[in-house]
């Protein structure tokens, strides 16, 4: 059994203007020590997916269906008390903005000791020793001094490293990282990502990495999930997705990168933009932007317009696309 098993997750936000479906039928698994990337553009639902993993969806949002099984227990139906035992302890989270995540009125040491004592019956002295050890693990220079410092005294990269140290504090099984380096510069991003990957490998921690950057996914993860308009549209081993993407959206996303064309020539753009979640197109949500939505005679394909595509398996990847399904059927016959 996988460590984390998400099946048919359905998350909605009950807004005045009507219900918005942020996640539809999202399923995936994560094994112990595995690193999974969730990619997509803004509005794809990737951050909602991250928050849902820890059942952190606040009103007006709610989990309308599906389950999040962690070691067999469904986090979607767990009591608040039981959830607190999992959150931060077994599954911890790294948020996007290192400026906002740390409490500005508590010193780094106090924040670290606080979360340790919330989960374990240990003395402050013991907690400080663990905190110090974790700070050393993330290569913070002069860690003893840092324990007494406040977040505003530290740079962005340093803060994000401290957040990683806090995420590792209770030796979790899974870390969920929501765009952990988006606010940072490239050289610092490279450092933080390498650190995160090494620590996950060393301690056999599973990682769910939410990002919009295909380069980061390629460097960091073993498996990738591509999301579009609240649905997973393609998932499989990262290398296969990067080298041989099947879904037209994934292909478009990869081909739009400047490094995929010769310098100076036109980039391969995907026309249009991601639909709002309150107003997703019928059938395959990508069809208004998809170049394969016409059949051989140049007519719009009815199935793309009307039916939500089911997953088909191509190689080691699962792809939700009518065109890919037809192509596979043709190959098989």
């Amino acid at each position, binding site marked *: 059994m996988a460590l984390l098993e998400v099946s048919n997750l359905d998350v909605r936000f009950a807004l005045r203007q009507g219900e918005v479906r942020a996640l539809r039928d999202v399923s995936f698994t994560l094994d112990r020590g595995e690193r999974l990337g969730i990619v997509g*553009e*803004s509005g794809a639902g990737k951050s909602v997916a991250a928050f849902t993993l820890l059942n952190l969806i606040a009103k007006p949002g709610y989990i309308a269906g599906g389950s999040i099984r962690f070691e067999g227990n469904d986090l979607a139906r767990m009591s608040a008390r039981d959830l607190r035992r999992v959150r931060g302890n077994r599954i911890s989270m790294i948020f996007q903005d290192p400026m906002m995540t740390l409490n500005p009125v508590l010193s780094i040491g106090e924040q670290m000791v606080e979360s340790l004592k919330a989960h374990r019956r240990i003395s402050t002295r013991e907690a400080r020793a663990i905190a110090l050890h974790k700070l050393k693990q993330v290569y913070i220079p002069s860690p003893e001094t840092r324990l007494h410092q406040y977040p505003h005294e530290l*740079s962005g*990269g*340093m803060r994000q490293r401290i957040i990683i140290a806090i995420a590792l504090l209770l030796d979790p099984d899974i870390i969920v990282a929501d765009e952990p380096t988006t606010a940072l*510069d*490239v*050289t*610092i*991003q*490279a*450092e933080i*990502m*390498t650190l995160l990957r090494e620590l996950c490998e060393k301690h056999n921690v599973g990682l769910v990495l939410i990002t*919009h*950057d*295909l*380069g*980061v996914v*390629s*460097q960091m993860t073993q498996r990738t999930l591509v999301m579009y308009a609240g649905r997973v549209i393609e998932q499989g081993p990262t*290398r296969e997705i*990067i080298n041989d993407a099947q879904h037209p959206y994934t292909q*478009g*996303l*990869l081909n*739009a*990168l*400047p*490094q995929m*064309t*010769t*310098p*100076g*020539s*036109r*980039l*391969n*753009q*995907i*026309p249009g*933009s*991601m639909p709002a979640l309150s107003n997703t197109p019928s059938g395959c949500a990508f069809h208004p932007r998809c170049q394969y939505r016409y059949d051989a005679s140049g007519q719009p394909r009815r199935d793309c317009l009307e039916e939500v595509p089911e997953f088909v398996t191509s190689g080691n990847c699962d792809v939700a696309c009518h065109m890919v399904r037809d192509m596979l059927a043709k190959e098989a016959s």
Partner: protein
Amino acid sequence: MNAVAAQTSPATASPTHAEAESLLEIRGLYKHFPLADGFLEQLHFEKGRLVRRNEQVHAINGVDLSVHRGEALCVVGESGCGKSTIARLVMGLLSPSAGDISYDGQRIDNMRGKQLLPYRQRMQMIFQNPYASLNPRMTIQQTLEEPLRFHHPNWTTPQVQDKVADVMASVGIDPEWGKRFGHEFSGGQRQRIAIARALAVDPEFIVADEPISALDVSIQAQVLNLLMDAQAERHLTYLFITHDLAVVEHFGTRVAVMYLGTVCELADTRSLFAKPKHPYTQALLSAIPRLEDDRPEHVRLSGEVPTPVHLPSGCVFHGRCPHAMERCRQEVPQLIVTDDGNQVACHAVEEGRI
């Protein structure tokens, strides 16, 4: 679209940069911002005594750059390196602490008001955040008409409206959308509108400050294509500020790499990416997350960017540089021209150590 490729490809860019006609010249530019504005903010209590200290942020520390007609000069660097300050100084939104900026042979940094007006039409700017750069209380039509009415006060209303319709069509916005307000559009569409506003007065030079950083990948490609098309059609010159090296490699004719308010390397795009010379450029290039999995481990820099309040002595990069020696700690390196015509400010390169 081949015309576009020919226009912007570094391969076709003239190798004799020295002979290329320069449109914008920046010489010995400095910009300092006072950290504390008022007298009271400058007072500090130290060791039982009240001292007055007037500290400065050294945003730009002696930059020389020239932008050649028809090229796209990219300025790259990490946050706090002064690249946006350069954009603002060039546009006259800030005035330099020292040094001069000339446009087409004419010094513009000391001009004010009416004198600067003709230059404001020839130079336009595109800002980073299209959510902030469009006035929320103006319709798109009003937003696009305003610069035209300002720069062409004798144009009739139909003339202005025709021009607006023209420029909207050229950036791929439906002229019907003119009645709507900025908030009704997505980020990519807003940035198109911001580009249309810049193009409306037919400028020859555009300063673009991170124009695609706030956009999604698929939209970035759309906007970048639009900028390249506009360059080919209108023979524009760009000063393009960005932190995204993949975009630079694609878009730039030449690249200036900045670190803590100084230019550390200036080269044509192809040779910079093929053979970066400055240790900082090398680290920066190796840090781009690439799609390939077989790339070498990135160059690890020790420490972080120092604050521009207390600049390091000597080479500003010496604290993080793996090749730093005693000379680097004491002497400020000057940009030297290397054998391939590019410029680099590094003692180690000069001495042939790397």
